[in-house]
């Protein structure tokens, strides 16, 4: 398998996948709440630390899957345990490992009942999320993909808000509905190619009908996860009811699996169908951007507002992916990371205000600027980042995506611009309400500003907002090799296709 750079010695990726799982198993035998918090923090922090060698040892020049491990699993069906990582997934894995400790910290006081079980769910989540991003065997991928549903369902259904039953079931059913067809497509691909090894399924001469069917099955699964308009309705419900850590995981990492899937599977496995169906998907992305913007503008619930803003932001990501050029795709991947950082930060902020006022209503949180200057400073920077203020991370992401879109089709890009305007509108509206309010603000004088723990939680997010915003080149370098490789292959494929069709004429 020359596609893989096998990792000799310490199996780092497997360790990262199973270390949180092992940690969660320990929790089964202990029942101290304080212990559970500390243990979960220790495990997630260690995972984050151990993921640093992924960055230092990553060879950005190589387009192969690195840190790879391959073991036989169920040889009768050619199912193997193969994991590896390329420039597309490396940042997502690191995003996951680095966000998890902060999710634990954000739940420190927020979660007061069934703490042990909560931390257990978080750790299991981490295993499955890392697994999804590094799996190179389709069955393995599918196992992780489905496995994730259970802890996430529990996070919402047990620790959620008043409508948790509705929200969790909706989340579960939507995602499951998508995954069923995904499984069908995986099996269909296996029957054609005789293997579950993902790279071997890529760039194969499948017939157009087959490609279109597989593409649609993939697309449904991933579009629900992203979520793309019009498959997004589960997201606001889930976000609103989920506890802070759940919202952060959902927004920062889970949504990225959808766009990661589109990029990893749709493009290389079904290239012809991608070209065929790119236009409608691009316009669907535009619809999502505009729709998300308008709905966010109308929200009175802070979490719903951010949830709908996610629909808009993820629209930019799918837009970038399907314009199929380097700037677009790199912008899309960067925007995935940015959205993880910024929206994660925003949800943390909302969680902090919820802990104080026990409400997500914008009108009840208005005018806190006077009493919580540190809080609103953080909130202001995250909001600015969210609507793409120059100098912040999202600006670079949106800039690249829109630059790619302008290269592709000038009118498409112009159609996305109102989304950027709306983003500024709803974010500034929220910021204005929270910092200033109006002339009849509720009495907020009982509020206490952020404590040390909360500042520690928010600071790294802010750091990344500016780091990516002012020095994005190192991040882009990491993905550049893999992205250009992918798009080169895509171009070669199309040229071959044209030659073939000419010959057939």
């Amino acid at each position, binding site marked *: 398998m020359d596609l893989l750079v096998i990792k000799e010695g310490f199996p780092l990726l497997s360790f990262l996948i199973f270390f949180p799982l092992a940690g969660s198993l320990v929790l089964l035998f202990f029942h101290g709440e304080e212990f559970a918090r500390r243990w979960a923090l220790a495990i997630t922090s260690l995972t984050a630390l151990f993921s640093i060698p992924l960055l230092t040892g990553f060879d950005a020049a190589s387009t192969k899957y690195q840190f790879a491990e391959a073991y036989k699993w169920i040889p009768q069906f050619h199912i193997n345990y193969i994991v590896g990582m390329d420039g597309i997934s490396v940042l997502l894995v690191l995003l996951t490992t680095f966000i998890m400790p902060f999710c634990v910290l954000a739940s420190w006081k927020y979660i007061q009942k069934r703490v042990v079980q909560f931390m257990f769910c978080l750790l299991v989540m981490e295993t499955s999320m890392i697994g999804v991003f590094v799996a190179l065997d389709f069955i393995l991928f599918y196992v992780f993909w489905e496995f994730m549903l259970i802890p996430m369902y529990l996070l919402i259904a047990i620790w959620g808000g008043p409508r948790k039953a509705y929200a969790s079931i909706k989340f579960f059913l939507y995602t499951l509905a998508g995954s069923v067809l995904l499984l069908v497509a995986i099996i269909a691909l296996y029957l054609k190619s005789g293997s579950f090894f993902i790279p071997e399924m890529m760039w194969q001469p499948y017939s157009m009908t087959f490609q279109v069917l597989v593409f649609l099955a993939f697309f449904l699964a991933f579009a629900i996860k992203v979520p793309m308009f019009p498959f997004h309705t589960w997201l606001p419900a889930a976000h609103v009811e989920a506890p802070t850590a759940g919202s952060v995981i959902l927004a920062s990492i889970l949504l990225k699996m959808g766009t990661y899937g589109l990029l990893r599977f749709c493009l290389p496995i079904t290239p012809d169908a991608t070209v065929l169906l790119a236009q409608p998907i691009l316009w669907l992305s535009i619809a999502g951007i505009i729709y998300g913007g308008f709905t966010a503008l109308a929200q009175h619930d802070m979490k719903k507002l951010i949830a709908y803003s996610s629909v808009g932001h993820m629209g930019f990501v799918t837009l970038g992916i399907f314009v199929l050029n380097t700037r677009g795709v790199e912008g899309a991947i960067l925007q995935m990371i940015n959205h993880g950082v910024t929206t994660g930060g925003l949800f943390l902020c909302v969680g902090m205000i919820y802990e104080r006022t026990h409400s997500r209503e914008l009108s009840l949180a208005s005018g806190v600027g006077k009493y919580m200057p540190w809080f609103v400073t953080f909130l202001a920077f995250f909001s*600015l980042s969210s609507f*793409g*203020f*120059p*100098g912040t991370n999202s600006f*670079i992401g949106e*800039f*690249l995506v*829109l*630059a790619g879109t*302008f*290269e592709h089709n*000038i009118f498409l*890009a*112009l159609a996305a*611009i*109102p989304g*950027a*305007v709306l983003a*500024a*509108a709803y974010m*500034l509206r929220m910021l*204005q309400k929270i910092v*200033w309010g*109006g*002339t009849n603000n509720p009495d907020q004088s009982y509020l206490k500003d952020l404590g040390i723990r909360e500042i520690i939680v928010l600071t790294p997010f802010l750091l990344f907002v500016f780091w990516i915003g*002012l*020095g*994005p*080149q190192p991040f*882009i370098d990491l993905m550049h090799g893999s992205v250009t490789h992918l798009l080169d292959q895509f171009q070669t494929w199309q040229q071959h296709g044209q030659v073939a069709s000419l010959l057939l004429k």
Partner: protein
Amino acid sequence: MHALTPELAPVVENGNLLLAVIIPLFGSLVVMTMKKHPNLREFISSCSSVLLFIMVLTFIPAIKAGQTLHFTLFELLPGLSISLRADGFSMIFALVASSLWIIAVYYSMGYMRAHDEPCQTRFNACFALAIFGAIGVAFSDNLLTLYLFYEIVSVCTYPLVAHHQDAESYDGARKYIIYLTTTAKFFLLPAIILIYVLSGSLDFPHSINAGIIPSSAKDWVVIMLYVFCIFGFAKNGVMPFHHWLPGAMVAPTPVSALLHAVAVVKVGVFCTTRTMLYVFGVDVMDKLNLGIPTAYFVGFTIIAASMIALSKDNLKARLAYSTVSQLSYIILGVALLTPHGIEGGLIHIVNHAFSKITLFFCAGAIYIAAHKKYISEMSGLGRTMPFTFGAFAVASLSMIGAPPVAGFVSKWYLLVGSMEASQVGILLILIASTVLNVGYFAPITYKAFFGKRPGGQAETGIKEAPLSMLIPILIAVTISVIIGIYPNFMMQFVRMVIG
């Protein structure tokens, strides 16, 4: 017209540029911690303003020697960086903004204390932040940096407009931020990205001729980009996106004075003219025939805003519409694309700034001393407040364009420029606007000095404004006269732009 060739304008790396931009930012951060020490806070504000001015002055010798100072802060992507530069063009605005900040700090100290305004710490901090943005705009080396600081100005001035925190000021501030961010996002963002896609870089060239748009770009795309840039920098007050400016007059008068007569609106015209000359360039604008239509388009703003000004009784509203009208002079001059036209437009950035800040200062002084906002209430007031109204009279002469006050110089160049371009229509617009200016400024002074007091008797208790406000007024008006008689100090920088 001769372009400055790169050999004549060597680029010198200079870290002091960063220092200049950081001084107001740092000042603002320090001010924020001084809530309990108002005297120390004001001391810090004035120190930073003086420091900034000195810093800007130190660049003059190098600029005069034909150098361009340059400093790169962050390299984002190839061809996309946050970097600073100082050339003749940036010096025009940097000198105006930094010198007037000093005067405005003293004036606002007097105003805010006399009026006993709340939240003065926030006020001072945001004031400094707005100057940080304005200086950043002046020293921007490329379109991205320009955009960054432009947006910083928008966001940081919101608290100043909403300062009183009542329904009216929230309303004005809402309008303010909606107009400014929407136009910037809707027009500027796509324009900047598309220019980057077309030319692979956003850095300004060193002459006003070439621009950075490649010749391969389609004509309709370039025209679209140009229109986007004119409307995108809505701080320039060009109709139909001018409404935020009258709305912003709910702010305390020092804000209206420094920001909405100088810093913010001049950021708008500075960005517009910088883009016209250094992104599109004279050649492209000539080729696509963009100049004269622009001149007529803003000519409409000049006339229409003057007409509206005539109908306003609120003094600050009248001044606001006068500002809208005067800003378009600057764009009109540059759009003529003739040497004298461009010179006239750019020197008007300076001339209008000093005269208009005087007028606003006077309006604030009248409000503090006599609690009067409406022109109709001011008749006879000039006899009680001779210095304030005297300064007002001189500054309004400058607005009208009468010698020997500053405004005359700009009007002279603009008239010559329109003749060079053989545009009789523009000439007529300028003359008509002069008549209108007389129409809305002369009655104020006339009534103040010669009008009867309402009720026919003297109102008691009204005195001349406090010295802390009067001194800044007199300094500003004196400078207005000096640059009218001796315009060369600023003209030298303007001439460097032309080459």
